[in-house]
């Protein structure tokens, strides 16, 4: 029989070690889950190819240049918002977060690990989408820093909103709601057709949605090589701050 030295230990490991282990676990769970992969990888790739090749909507030519910015925004939303909301919602429901709270891992450490995993998955998504885009003849313009800035601010915004849902609603409600919002924003978020096709009032509304602001902002950079309009930065930032404040107010760990 194996003997165990059960004498009390010295307590917590260095924070970095716990954070790294938690990040690995989050990443593993994201990449192992079939539904998550469908949402974060397969759907964006399929839509990219479909919208670029099939004459579905009347979009400015070349089609790939129009479609790419919206798909990048969609990829960020699928991971940071939809995937994270559903995953965290069920972790809460299964008592995973509650049990983790009895370990040395702090809430900040858990959030940092979740965010790192999301950013790593997004990097993978963006890499794959850009490679496929390049193969389809995509020719991006503008400042890469602006693009990364919009993607990161969008990540912060969608993460906050996703965690708000996951931490305040029942897991089933989060599942339904997160998918519904994904579809709704896919419809009017400037992914499949330009927001300029909408009536002026509808257009203003759509531009106030996080995905609408992201895809329009990215389009300014990637298609026209100019800076992101201030109102798009502001829109995403306001959603991010409001989401973060609401999440820290209403997020329940059990």
């Amino acid at each position, binding site marked *: *029989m*194996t003997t*165990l*030295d*059960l*004498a*009390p*230990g*010295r*307590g*917590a*490991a260095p924070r970095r*070690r*716990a954070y*790294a*282990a*938690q990040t*690995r*676990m989050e990443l*593993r*769970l994201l990449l*192992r*889950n079939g539904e998550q992969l469908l949402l974060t990888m397969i759907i964006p790739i399929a839509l990219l190819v479909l919208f670029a090749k099939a004459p579905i909507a009347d979009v400015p030519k070349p089609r790939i240049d129009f479609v790419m910015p919206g798909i990048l925004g969609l990829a960020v939303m699928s991971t940071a918002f939809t995937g994270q909301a559903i995953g965290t919602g069920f*972790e809460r*429901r*299964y*008592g*995973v977060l*509650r*049990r983790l*709270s*009895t*370990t*040395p*891992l*702090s809430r900040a450490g858990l959030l940092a690990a979740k965010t790192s995993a999301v950013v790593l998955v997004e990097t993978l998504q963006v890499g794959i989408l850009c490679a496929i885009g390049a193969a389809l003849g995509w020719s991006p313009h503008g400042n890469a820093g602006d693009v990364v800035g919009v993607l990161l601010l969008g990540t912060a915004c969608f993460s906050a909103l996703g965690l708000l849902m996951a931490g305040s609603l029942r897991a089933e409600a989060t599942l339904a709601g997160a998918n519904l919002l994904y579809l709704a924003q896919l419809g009017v978020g400037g992914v499949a057709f330009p927001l300029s096709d909408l009536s002026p009032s509808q257009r203003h509304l759509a531009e106030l949605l996080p995905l609408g602001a992201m895809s329009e902002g990215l389009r300014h950079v990637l298609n026209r090589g100019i800076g992101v309009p201030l109102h798009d930065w502001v829109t995403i930032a306001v959603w991010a701050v409001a989401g973060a404040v609401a999440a820290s107010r209403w997020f329940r760990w*059990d």
Partner: protein
Amino acid sequence: MLLRGRAETCRVAAAVEVNGLVRRYSPTAGISDVSFTAPAGAVTALLGRNGAGKTTTVEICCGLRRADSGQARVLGLDPARDHRKLAPRLGVMPQAGGSGASGVYPSARVEEVLALYAAMYADPLPVEDLLERLDLRRVRRTTWRRLSGGEQQRVSLALALVGRPAVAFLDEPSAGLDVHARHTTWELVRELRSAGVAIILTTHDLAEAAVLADAVVIIDAGRVVASGSPADLTRDASARGLRFEAPPGLPLGDLEAVLPDGASAQEVRPGHYAVGPRVDPDTVAAVTAWCAKQGVLADNLTTSSRSLEDVFLALTAESS
């Protein structure tokens, strides 16, 4: 000298000290008065029926819930306020099943979850040894959701112990285990005790409390109704004694004259006699000799000591 004196005081101080704890969910649910202390190097069992308030008490002690009033101290710290400081020194095994909140990622493999928890502590137990000890090597690559109930319980125990806690809270650790696994668990709990860990476990299994616990705290309907060592709790005069059956109306005054000092006899109901409070071989000899002299046969003569079950049923009968 002063420093040494203080160190010694610390060592003997209770690892867990709970005083007048109250947490109400509704007028009938929750706990209304729970107090106990649990020293290091000892097993303290919180014994009670389902819904008695055991889990609530444990959850307050490990900082998962706040008390409405009363005080809990774990290793001298306030579990709610000092949670971050305390958590690294606790091992918590939540109750399985119930709300379905197992507390483990359903799609994570056994070895992955154990490695995750091990990474959070300064000097964790070797994961391999723990897997071996709890007979989990076969299922190391199995995901949590595919484990049997008993396997999940053992993984859950491993997660509570991997960080080498100073205080272990085990909420129904042997629920759903087969006989072998239960003994493995008990053996581990005894080793924890020898290593100086304070173990607080909840159970509704009287046998478990009787064989494992140094101290038993009986909780009923949210309050402590009795506490002490299993021996203390069962050392109650009224229920220990000698019983026999014989024709009704025997002259018990004569019997008492031949019994050892302090012993008395009574006819509990016609034809049923009880002798107590203590029974030793002399008492048995005196009773049988006296019956022989009376020309009666002492039938169904039994001696019994009160079991923990008797105590528990008597104490918790009121609220049922």
